[in-house]
């Protein structure tokens, strides 16, 4: 432990390494000799393993006692003319998303073979990893935007080149939706920096902490700028009604692409709301919270209802993501510790369980060459292990107590209940619906008589089992004992809520801990005055 403590005091530049290593790996993959095709996967997996090891080191070396602080900070001026710097750091909000990214990539690279054009596939995957980690640890708005945008390119090619029949359409739709969504955010970022520089008389800076602590924008301006950010994140999340790119992209993407898309990329938007929406614009977030709470709720119900009606197993999982992300949005805009923490936890949970679901659907597709629910059936007899694993993952996605999904969903609902009681009641309906569509789909796919090829479907291979094992362990471990995760998240979340309380006049964290003033702010106070 002494060694680790010392390492935490003098960290090697781990965050830049997290960006440079996958990028360098991608370059290496691109220039490997053509005669040694077997090296491609080896190099890609090895690179992602190194990154995974570094993210785990990050988790261990993360100082819980200074949980609210930015740790492992790295600062290097980049475009001096505009005051843009490579400013990377980690706190409790981003820590687990980085670890999730680090763990999912080797799993995906090991589990799924692209089938053709291996070199380009592995290079794009590693570039994607670099971009995603860049998003999660960038503390400079401009670097954040660059990484946020640049992940579109690898994902576009991954969906387009290695996807299913209609992949060109889905890839283009994905690229254009998300790019158009974030277009205005660049203006927002620039406006924020210039207005801040004008207000303080200082130099141009895009330093997140400096901008957030200064709060130098007027209320109305801040609301406009917040909207430019919110649009970008809302498309990325995606929040209803901007979600239409998601089912297409998920369904057409290759298994590896779907896993990364669901596991990691969908978190970019919700993470953006937490880190850049709430922190930079507390007043505007509070002002617009009802809108996002409503849209989050609509997403939960809508996603669940539409998922119930899907005939394509992959599309069903895709719509279930819309519902799950609705929960995350709900928790985030509850603006209290439970809600935000639940949302954050749910980001990680959704990453783990949906990634596993997509891997399983991919394995079924690989064997049966169909994803249509009515063409599958009775798989349980032929593949009992696969069915068992599917059950576990599905139950985690439903939110069964004892598995990871429960903890996050419960916290979200508690947070929402404390802030807006009726929204929580309505959202609970979404939990019920989730059980409905997933169990019904499970029933149709795995139960009943097995016909034709379904009866001879091979069961899970050892390699596939090993690849899934870490995800299953996480599903159980985080469900039974979430404390290590929560205690690392909590200081940062508390700090964020305190930040909102300081900067929003008359706002107090909606909480039930200290008695009567549950719910709708002033109503409770008035009731107290009547005595």
């Amino acid at each position, binding site marked *: 432990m002494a060694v680790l403590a010392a390492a935490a005091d003098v960290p090697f530049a781990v965050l830049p390494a997290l960006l440079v290593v996958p990028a360098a790996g991608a370059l290496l993959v691109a220039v490997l000799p053509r005669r040694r095709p077997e090296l491609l996967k080896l190099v890609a997996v090895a690179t992602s393993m190194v990154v995974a090891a570094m993210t785990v080191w990050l988790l261990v070396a993360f100082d819980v006692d200074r949980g609210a602080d930015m740790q492992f900070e790295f600062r290097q001026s980049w475009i001096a003319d*505009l005051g843009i710097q490579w400013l990377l750091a980690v706190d409790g909000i981003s820590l687990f998303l980085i670890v999730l990214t680090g763990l999912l990539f080797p799993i995906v690279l090991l589990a799924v073979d692209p089938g053709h054009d291996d070199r380009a596939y592995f290079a794009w995957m590693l570039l994607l990893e670099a971009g995603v980690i860049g998003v999660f640890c960038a503390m400079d708005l401009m670097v954040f935007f660059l990484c946020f945008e*640049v992940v579109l*390119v690898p994902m576009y090619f991954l969906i387009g*080149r290695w996807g299913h029949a209609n992949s*060109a359409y889905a890839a283009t739709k994905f690229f*254009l939706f998300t790019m158009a969504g974030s277009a*205005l955010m*660049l203006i927002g970022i*620039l406006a924020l920096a210039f207005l801040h520089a004008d207000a303080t008389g200082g130099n141009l800076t895009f330093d997140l902490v400096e901008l957030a602590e200064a709060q130098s924008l007027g209320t109305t301006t801040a609301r406009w700028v917040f909207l430019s950010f919110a649009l970008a994140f809302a498309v990325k999340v995606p929040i209803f009604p901007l979600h239409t790119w998601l089912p297409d992209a998920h369904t057409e993407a290759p298994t590896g692409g779907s896993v990364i898309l669901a596991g990691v990329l969908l978190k970019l938007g919700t993470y953006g709301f937490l880190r850049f929406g709430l922190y930079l614009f507390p007043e505007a977030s509070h002002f617009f919270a009802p809108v996002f709470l409503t849209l989050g709720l609509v997403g939960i119900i809508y996603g669940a209802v539409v998922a119930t009606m899907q005939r394509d197993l992959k599309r069903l999982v895709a719509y279930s993501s819309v519902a799950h992300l609705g929960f995350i949005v709900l928790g985030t805009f509850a603006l209290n510790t439970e809600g935000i923490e639940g949302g954050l936890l749910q980001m990680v949970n959704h990453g783990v369980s949906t990634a596993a679901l997509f891997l399983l659907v991919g394995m079924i597709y690989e064997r049966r060459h169909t994803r249509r629910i009515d063409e599958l059936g009775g798989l349980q007899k032929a593949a009992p292990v696969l069915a068992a694993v599917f059950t576990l993952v599905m139950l985690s996605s439903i939110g069964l107590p004892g598995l990871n999904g429960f903890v996050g969903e419960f916290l979200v609902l508690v947070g929402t209940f404390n802030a807006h009681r009726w929204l929580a009641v309505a959202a609970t309906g979404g939990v019920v619906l989730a059980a409905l569509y997933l169990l019904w789909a499970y029933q149709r796919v795995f139960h009943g008589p097995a016909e034709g090829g379904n009866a001879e479907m091979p069961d899970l291979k050892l390699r596939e089992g090993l690849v899934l094992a870490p995800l299953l362990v996480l599903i159980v471990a985080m469900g039974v004992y979430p404390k290590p995760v929560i205690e690392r998240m909590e200081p940062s979340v508390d700090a964020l809520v305190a930040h909102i309380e300081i900067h929003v006049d008359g706002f107090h964290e909606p909480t039930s801990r200290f008695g009567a003033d549950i719910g709708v702010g002033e109503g409770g106070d008035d009731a107290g005055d009547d005595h």
Partner: protein
Amino acid sequence: MPPLVTPEVIWWALLPLLVLSGGGFLLLTIASLVRRLPEALPQAWTVATGLVVLIATVPMWDRVQSDGPRSFLGGMVAVDGSTVLVTAILAMAVVATALLARPYLRREDLPGVELYVLLLMSAAGGVVMASADDLIVLFLGLEILSIAVYVLAALHLRRIESQEAALKYFVLGAFASAFLLYGIALIYGATGSTRMARISGHLASTVLVQDGMLLAGIALLLVGLAFKVAAVPFHAWTPDVYQGAPSPVVAWMAAGVKTAGFAAMLRVLVVTLGTHASDWRPAVAVLAAASMVVGAWVAVLQTDVKRMLAYSSIAHAGFILLGVQAASERGTSAVYVYLFVYTLLATGSFAVITTVAGRGDAAHGLGAYRGLARRQPVLAGAFTVLLLGQAGVPFTGGFVAKLGVLAAAVEGRTYWVAMVAMAAAAVAAFVYLRILVAMYLEDPAPDTDDRYEVPTGTRLVIGAACAGVLLIGLVPGFLLDIASDAVPVLVGG
């Protein structure tokens, strides 16, 4: 009798002009005297001339930075940071165009020397525009540049489209020149001088009671310059001319002519008429918005890649105008950065187009690019870099360029144009994606399974363009520093 006073001449500052025009004349003379010229000579000569100018700009830059800007030849010509930077960009474009030209001429079986001579002349005109300290000199430079390009457009003797392009370009170009000249005349009438320093001095020290003539002059000047840089609504010639003219010439038009045009626009609007920025800024902002929207939107409707890039070049002109309309130092230096990056993007992209077009310079449809990634992964990869650069994807030079002009627009509080710009960028991205889809996601058409031969010169251009675009995307500091030192200044008066 008093001694005859000749105006001061700063020879080192005239060097690029002398080398380019001298090189052009010498080449013309040699070619008409020597019966059997070695086939490689004109190209080598032109490339060498361009490189000499490019190298000469390095000591010139140091000198300008240490001694400050100078005006000479009786206040007709000036040299400042912007002059040197624009000269360097033009020299780069000359080298690239010359490298593309020879394989093109050989493939199309066209006579050799004229293209190079006209190219050098045109570049000399561009340098004159970039160093003009007097509106009449600016006009002269513009005409030298334009007339050479009119002929260049018609250079493909056997393609009727090429002739059509040249005629269209010439008629509309002459029209625009007339506007420009009339504008100069009106400004002379309003201020009593055609010398930029005097005009700006006059406007700074005098309040015009009736400024109608000045405003009309500014408007006409703006029309003339907007035509040269192909800004909407003065863009109608661009798609036809780009489609018809020989592809290497189009590279020069997109890179060289646009650079010279914007250099002139900055000297006239931002520097000379800076005191009246509040009058012309809204007009330029509208031009910018219209160019971006129309360019991006109409590009989406095209099926011909060359026409797509023609419209996208209109959209790029709109982005550059975004920097002009900011009328600030940040805006001006952002324009230079954009011009530098766009020169790389345009020469590289048109190099690919020249290659894929095949003999007859006709295969510009999207079909010609289908499955290119499977047939020639390296060429497709290079084109991908260039297209992503044009789309402004992060970590390419294109993003740095767009970021600069957007920052200038936001700093100038013209949020609405900035928002239009980002919307247009998203639309334009679709254009580039279509080409990417064709290259990567579609199978090659059955009859185009042959490989395109990529000549060495073309390889050099494409490789240098890609390397430059990525380098600027990753470490943009050096270019931004140069550009911020290159803001034009008026001296003398």
